[in-house]
């Protein structure tokens, strides 16, 4: 009898242990996913912050550029650098056949002409002299140099020819290949060529969208929250508004995209693909988030504050505007930042309003067509070229960096400025 009891007790304890183990492994799994995830993004992305340059000797021959003697600054601006640039590349292998010359040309980005021009404009006295110039390597060679590209594939399955590899290896041996910090990733707009593609255009697009979103959503949401929390009579209509807000918070983001498309673009005829429309769409999406956060922090202000103000003869409006609202601001602001962080990561609604269009200029205002960082991730992820894989990961790192900063900022505001009332 006793033995049976003990057996039962033991099996109950084992069940207890098992249950705890399940709980622990669930948490472990969730954290494992997070770790794998972050590790994967960083391991594929960090190389994008380096860029491979070919250092090529350029002979600034006035004749190849069709320049007269003693050219003025304007002459240098207008001169033809293409032949010079081509000649420079062909000089790498003087015995190259026509097809090989073409390969030589494709070892660098199509910006090579501009890079040579910039060098000469910086120092016009270079005419007639030879100087080593840094040229952006093509993205395939860039990937080869970083070790992301398998060299042992058969030639017809590779985008780099054997000839290009041979010349490239010669250059590496001569120390004429160098890897430097990839500044152009941050300063160039999007491009079809992976080696020249940067996040400047989508970054500005994101900034403009978020600003528009902030300008619209913040005031409206705060005013609405003040009304609902402080002034609204308790009746059916207020309940209806509340139900509406709660539901909007859970409507899938793509539906807001359809709203933007069907109302903002089709009815109001706002310009397509612009951060203005994107920002308005996102603001409708973040509105409920901010309203809910603002109401929660208004609710957290103790009634004694209101009663004290009312007792001193302040009107209801004065009490609210002078005392309750300022005290609730830390919570509201951190809620707003979290809402904006959500909006910053949103992709689907922006795709629907046309912010996926290829934009290779940096937008100067919310009315210029633009992409945004998450949309840029989508665009690059969909392109086949290998060079874009690391760019996507790098872009994700930038985006995640921003989200982390915003969330930290929200935390700091909450902890530093929020008053504890107990």
């Amino acid at each position, binding site marked *: 009898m006793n033995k049976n009891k003990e057996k039962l007790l033991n099996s109950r304890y084992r069940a207890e242990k098992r249950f705890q183990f399940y*709980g622990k492994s669930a948490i472990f799994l*969730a954290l494992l996913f*997070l770790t794998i995830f972050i590790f994967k993004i960083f391991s594929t992305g960090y190389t994008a912050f380096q860029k491979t340059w070919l250092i090529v000797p350029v002979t600034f021959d006035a004749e190849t550029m069709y320049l007269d003697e003693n050219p003025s600054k304007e002459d240098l601006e207008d001169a033809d650098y293409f032949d010079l640039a081509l000649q420079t590349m062909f000089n790498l292998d003087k015995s190259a056949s026509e097809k090989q010359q073409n390969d030589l040309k494709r070892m660098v980005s199509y910006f090579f002409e501009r890079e040579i021009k910039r060098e000469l404009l910086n120092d016009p006295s270079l005419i007639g002299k030879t100087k080593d110039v840094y040229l952006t390597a093509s993205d395939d060679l860039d990937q080869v140099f970083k070790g992301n590209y398998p060299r042992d594939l058969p030639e017809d399955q590779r985008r780099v020819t054997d000839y290009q590899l041979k010349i490239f290896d010669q250059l590496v041996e001569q120390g004429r290949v160098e890897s430097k910090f990839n500044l152009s990733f941050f300063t160039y707009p999007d491009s079809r060529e992976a080696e020249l593609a940067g996040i400047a255009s989508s970054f500005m697009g994101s900034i403009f969208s978020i600003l528009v979103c902030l300008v619209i959503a913040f005031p*409206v949401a705060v005013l609405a929250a003040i009304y*609902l929390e402080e002034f609204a009579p308790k009746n059916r209509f207020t309940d209806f508004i509340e139900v509406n807000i709660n539901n*909007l918070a859970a409507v899938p983001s793509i539906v807001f995209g359809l709203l933007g498309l069907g109302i903002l673009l089709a009815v109001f005829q706002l310009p397509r693909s612009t951060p203005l429309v994107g920002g308005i769409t996102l603001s409708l999406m973040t509105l409920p988030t901010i309203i809910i956060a603002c109401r929660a922090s208004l609710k957290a202000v103790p009634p004694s504050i209101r009663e004290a103000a009312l007792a001193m003869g302040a*009107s209801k409006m004065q009490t609210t505007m002078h005392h309750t609202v300022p005290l609730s601001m830390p919570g509201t602001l951190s809620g707003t930042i979290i809402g904006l962080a959500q909006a910053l990561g949103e992709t689907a609604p922006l795709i629907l309003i046309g912010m996926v269009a290829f934009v290779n200029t940096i937008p100067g205002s919310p009315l210029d067509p633009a992409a945004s960082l998450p949309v840029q991730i*989508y665009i690059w*992820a969909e392109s086949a070229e290998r060079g874009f894989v690391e760019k996507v990961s790098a872009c994700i790192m930038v985006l995640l960096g921003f989200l982390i900063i915003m969330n930290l900022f929200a935390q700091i505001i909450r902890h530093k400025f929020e008053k504890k009332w107990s």
Partner: protein
Amino acid sequence: MNLVIFIFIVLLGFTSYYFGRKKAYSIQATNTRLTALPQFYGYYLAIWCAIPAFIIYSLWAIFEPSIVKLIILSDYSNQGYLDDELNLIYEKTKSLSRGQFSGEITTYLETSAEKYLNLRSIAQNSKVVLILAIIIASIVYGYKRISSNNRTREPVEKFLNAVLFTASLAAILTTIGIVFSLIFQTIDFFKVIPLFDFIFGTHWYPAKAFVRDASEPLDPSMYSDTFGAVPIFAGTFFIALIAMCVAIPIGLMSGIYLAEYASTKVRQYAKPLIEILAGIPTVVYGFFAALTVGPFLKDIGTAMGLEVSAESALAAGGVMGIMIIPFISSLSDDVITSVPQSLRDGSYAMGATKSETIKKVIFPAALPGIVGSILLGVSRAVGETMIVVMASGLAANLTFNPLESTSTITAQIVVILIGDQAFGDPKTQAAFALGMTLFLVTLSLNIFALRVVKKYREKYE
């Protein structure tokens, strides 16, 4: 020009604030008792100055283009043009007047363009004059009201109250906007495609319905067997199911562990870390699923002799499940923590172990809340777009094999609407019909879930 008027009104508003306050001080100086603080006099005058002007300004901005259009097109009214042609003529006139027109310029167009420019300048001038007049009239009126020792606090506060109330309508307006943007296109869609075909048809090939020439009459038979939504409904359901198979066990168990077992320290770190998963943008998950999980599953499948598509429902659903873990774990954590301690104490007093208490007492008590959190998770899964677009296929296959690719409602909306859209085309309208379906499904899920959670909360509060 509009910006100048706008700034002008704002500046005048500010100055009239100071005038109003000054007036209040001067009244005070005569030893008359003010009925409100001086700044209320300022606000009062500023509101009188700016608000009527703004109302006129915005009404003008809304109605001017359509009135100008009406006048311009009245010249063409009795020549038997169709509406579309009239619109085209108007667009041509506008671009000609801006000097950007590149087509053939007829005398008709030229006169219209001249008339257009004329009208615009008349409109612009009269707008400025009208707004100025309104401002002057309303300032004078407001100033007079102040002088006669009027009460200013009440109207100012009433005005503010009205502003607050209007802002709170934004949520309702957004909902109305969503419904409006969806409903007209949806109705048009069902005029061409019978509702029955949409709900029960098993072939979904929107690519077949290429953009049609607008001048040709619409032939519904062209679209038979094109917009049968069963494959995408099934795909949506299937991917959501896979996601929940990942999210429910992990999310629920970690919620229970955090609420009942974890020490304060573990809780303090583990909870925010898990919640990071909810903050990662979905496009990032999509990239992760497409780049890592998809090929990984494919490799495993090949090693086991299975044929796995690189874009499988399993990859999309699994990654989506990871995304939903924190929703379920946080919500069920909250629900479990709010179960009254007395229930636990009662159970322990009877000699139950902790896990028995959880399974037999706390879990049943928290069940409604947990169901609510799961339903919210399902609604997330149904509405999730980017993961499916990037990691599962775009072709709508009717399959329940997790190793093949399927598509969802959201993914199809993106597929149809990416790039240029032609409104009035059944293909575009199909996307809106799908959006309507999605909206209704998630709305009912949310309402149901929130109701369950609320009911539960009331029980223990």
